[in-house]
């Protein structure tokens, strides 16, 4: 455990501890799981490995997207229903780079995310004119503008969409394994990025803004700059999820890429898992995946149940499943707070 020693008046010295037993265990378990997953193509039977890898890529996209929504809403206090704008932009930017600019499609994934982040800067200028609930619907309108605009571009197939031809000629097994590894790297990187960001000094500033914007500003925190930074990082993450999703899917259309369902799923996952904590979207994604696995055949009833679950959680269990566990048993896998111990 890394500990800083602090002299405290009247008590002697105290240690600042940031890790918990649970977080140390989680780190070991996480590394083991990552190693196990990374070698999956080597030890799993070929048939089932293919379906596992495809499943994992899809879940990874949901997880990254939900984590970024959690960063934006749970930490930045910006509740958006328009993050699908950056999901779609990431996907389309990846496709354009791959199909038309001859960039390797896997290299185009982080570049697509970068494009989404760049576009987020001018978009924020418009979106930040609104606050609270109106920000949520305003961002939804902006996402709809991107959907309708892309639907009018004939080069990417207009409203009916187009295929990712950049991956033509690559063997299916190679393509699936590469996509899987890329997804794994993206998930680990996204979790690490968010965790390290929140533990840093800037993360502390972000928590201060979330708890009280006016008080934070009076302490010298650049609230506007901080919000812009979070918005851009969240757009990068959403773009990464989108680019990754359409590399796995090979086909893109405006209605799929800019669907409000992406934000709906992210909101439900984060709220059910617990907003404003890193474990929240991870738990939420697991719940979502289990429900999807067992109930997705029921189509509309499945969505109906998910919506109801989110409503019930918000009304009766405001902190979500993980928030409940944290309060009840003191679990914290990704501690961002500092403990002062003698």
């Amino acid at each position, binding site marked *: 455990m890394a500990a800083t020693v602090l002299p405290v008046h009247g008590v002697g010295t105290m240690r600042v501890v940031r890790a918990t037993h649970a977080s140390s265990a989680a780190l070991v378990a996480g590394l083991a799981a990552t190693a196990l997953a990374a070698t999956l193509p080597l030890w799993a039977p070929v048939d089932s490995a293919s379906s596992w890898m495809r499943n994992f890529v899809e879940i990874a996209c949901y997880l990254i997207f939900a984590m970024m929504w959690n960063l934006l809403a749970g930490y930045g206090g910006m*509740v958006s229903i328009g993050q699908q704008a950056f999901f779609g932009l990431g996907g389309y930017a990846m496709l354009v780079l791959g199909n038309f600019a001859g960039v390797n499609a896997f290299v185009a994934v982080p570049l697509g995310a970068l494009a989404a982040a760049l576009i987020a800067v001018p978009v924020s200028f418009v979106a930040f004119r609104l606050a609270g609930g109106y920000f949520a619907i305003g961002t939804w309108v902006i996402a709809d503008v991107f959907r309708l605009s892309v639907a009018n571009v004939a080069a990417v197939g207009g409203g009916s969409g187009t295929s990712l031809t950049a991956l033509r000629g690559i063997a299916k097994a190679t393509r699936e394994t590469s996509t899987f590894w890329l997804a794994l790297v993206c998930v680990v990187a996204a979790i690490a990025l968010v965790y390290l960001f929140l533990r840093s000094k800037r993360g502390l500033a972000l928590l201060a803004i979330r708890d009280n914007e006016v008080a934070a500003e009076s302490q010298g925190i650049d609230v506007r700059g901080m919000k812009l930074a979070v918005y851009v990082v969240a757009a990068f993450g959403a773009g990464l999820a989108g680019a990754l999703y359409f590399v796995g899917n090979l086909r893109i259309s405006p209605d799929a890429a800019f669907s409000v369902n992406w934000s709906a799923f992210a909101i439900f996952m984060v709220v059910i898992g617990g907003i404003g904590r890193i474990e929240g979207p991870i738990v939420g994604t697991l719940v979502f995946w289990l429900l999807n696995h067992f109930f997705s055949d029921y189509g509309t009833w499945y969505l109906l149940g998910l919506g109801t679950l989110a409503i019930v959680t918000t009304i009766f269990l405001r902190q979500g499943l993980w928030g409940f566990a944290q309060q009840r048993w003191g679990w914290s896998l990704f501690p961002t707070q500092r403990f002062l111990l003698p």
Partner: protein
Amino acid sequence: MMLDVLLQGLLLGGLYGLFALGLSLVFGVMRLTNTAHGDFIVLAAFAAIAGLAVLAPMLPAGIAAPLLVAALLLPVSFGFGYALQRWVLNGTLGRDPLPSLVVTFGLSIVIQNLLLETFSADPRSIDSAGLSTASLALPGGVAVGALPVAILAFAVAATAALQWLFGRTSIGRSFRAVSDDREIAELMGLDARKVYALATAIAFVLIAAAGVLQAMRTTVSPADGPALLLFAFEAVIIGGMGSFWGTLVGALLLGVTQQIGFRLDPGWGIWLGHLAFLAVLVVRPQGLFPKTVG
């Protein structure tokens, strides 16, 4: 040609005005953003369609049938809105906008899928006994539909009624009081939870009227709600928050802009409306006619 586009746009805007008034009222009184607003309009339309089908043997023929069903639906909707606010949404209000957004957004998904399960994805409409095809000839060789004109007239009347309610009655005074400062209003003897419930109940009367008229004028299908919400929202922002006349003018402007877009290319109408909204947001974020309610 230009006159025709302008007229059609204003008539379309009348319907959008009805969509927007309820949203404006609820936000004005309790800062609640109801993301299921459009879905409730669609739900009301389907309730009217179902009511017409169930009550068919008892109803008179012609335009009286939908009007009678609407007359039944309005008080039901009033009660529904009151109960929803009193026992569900009031608990989600607060400084943090997240709970109310999640709950209304969850309701939106629930309503859409419930309607999809019950009525299938087919678009449906209410038979208005020829009213929707009847037209009025205007001087200059332009003809306008009788039903859209009636809808616009209804929207103007509803705006005037709301403005009167807000500015001239004791109910309106309680709305303004809890909007300005909930705690002081409660110290003066108001029960904010009941005032909020009443405001939402009135908004739901408008929602029901908008739903029936939308289904008479065109068609409704279970997935239409979000688009209606976005139009209503754009009208509120373009008009400027806090004034019902501003909301109506915002809706009319949105209708005209969309109509110009539709005339240029059928795929551009909604897109151009969105762009006009964004332009207002950048150039004049307080809206065209900002005013504190009342």
